[in-house]
């Protein structure tokens, strides 16, 4: 009857207070027809897992600019597992040194995005992973 809505939690763990990038991604995903729950800055791993659970999201997008990704990401993944939310797709965006990317992926992160990644690509990745779509329609402009 109704089409499947993709639900995404966009969260900023850690202490840095810049959420411009996170907001841009949040809007792009909304404009691609997704329901985006935005929780604001300075979220603890516990808060993120709790919100992911309550909102029953398909995707958790973490924006990390502080350089603390190697400690924060495993913590978030652990809390998601504890909450029974290990099926969600975890994406990480931010300033991530290339050598950390394979390590993050090994931990269970689906994709890592550097600054300047076209938001289209994030949209496509999410659609493909959640809906199993191989092709995406052209996006409506924001």
């Amino acid at each position, binding site marked *: 009857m109704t089409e*499947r809505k993709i639900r995404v939690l966009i969260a900023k763990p850690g202490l840095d207070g810049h959420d411009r990038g996170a907001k841009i991604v949040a809007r792009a995903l*909304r404009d691609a027809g997704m*329901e*985006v729950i935005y929780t604001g800055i300075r979220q603890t791993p*516990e808060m993120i897992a709790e919100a992911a659970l*309550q909102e*029953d999201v398909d995707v958790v997008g973490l924006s990390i600019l502080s350089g603390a990704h190697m400690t924060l990401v495993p913590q978030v993944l652990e809390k998601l597992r504890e909450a029974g939310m290990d099926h969600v797709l975890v994406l990480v965006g931010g300033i991530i040194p290339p050598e950390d990317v394979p390590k993050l992926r090994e931990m269970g992160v689906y994709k890592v995005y550097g600054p300047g990644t076209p938001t289209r690509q994030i949209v496509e990745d999410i659609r493909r992973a959640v809906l199993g779509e191989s092709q995406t329609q052209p996006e409506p402009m924001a």
Partner: protein
Amino acid sequence: MSRDLAQRVLQGERRALARALSLVENDAPEGEALLEALFPHTGRAHLVGFTGPPGVGKSTLVARLARYFRREAPSPRTVGILAVDPTSPFTGGALLGDRIRMRDLAGDPGVFIRSMASRGAVGGLARNTAAAAQVLDAAGFDLVFIETVGAGQAEVEIARLAHTVVVVQAPGLGDEIQALKAGILEIADILVVNKADRPGAQQLARTLENWLGRRTPKGEGPDDASPASASNTPWIPPVLLVTATQGEGIPQIAQSLKEHAAHLKRTGAWQERERRRFESELRERVLLTFWRRWETRAKQLGLSQLLERILKREISPQRAAETLLRQMWSDQETKG
């Protein structure tokens, strides 16, 4: 499977509750079965709606009030929260930001917050918000807070769903008169002037009091109520000055909620409101079923041929509609 899920919801399992809300929100067939299984366990929660223009502080207020009921009230009560934000009519997407104001409630097992996109419904709620509220009710939350989409218009939908409607206003929005015109105050059981730390709050509260005073019929105010006639004393919505960010005035809202619930129960209005809610739900369900049947049958019944004939002026729209309806009904009879 849904039986099992219902059981887990009733036992207060949070992951099950989250799944249940999704099934119900998405009109999944399992959602219907689930609602049915949960229905006997509903009817305990006090459903409270919060409505008012964008940015008046509804989310901040809901969070502070929930915190009060959890940590400060003489006897703590559990709180389920449904926060509705608008779906973009152009993209079908939504940015749900009410949680930003509710971070204080994190980690409390007596609180459950769920954001809902309006998904094309008008009137400040999503079509399945009422069903979601039932799920939270069955899960055992004492209070269910429902924050509507920020709007200046009269939110009939929330008045239909909630036992108590809190209308939130704030100074400096320049739309006090607008609010009066839009009839939003007519649905208020409790009026909150939030942002009382801002200039103009007192003035706004006085304006609202005056307006309420004019509306209240003479001789029926609380001063004239003798104990004997207490059961038919009308409820006079209090006007409360609140600074949600500081928590000022929050205990007064809690007190008014309690008094309003008691008033509704004493006067039979609680049941009356429930009756109205179920009546409209019944009507909606029946209409929806008709509508769906029509949508699936329209083509087979020769809608496009009839349209051609209408265009050629061979048959009037009225006659064509009659023809279609007659066929729909005869369908019905041969089936049943």
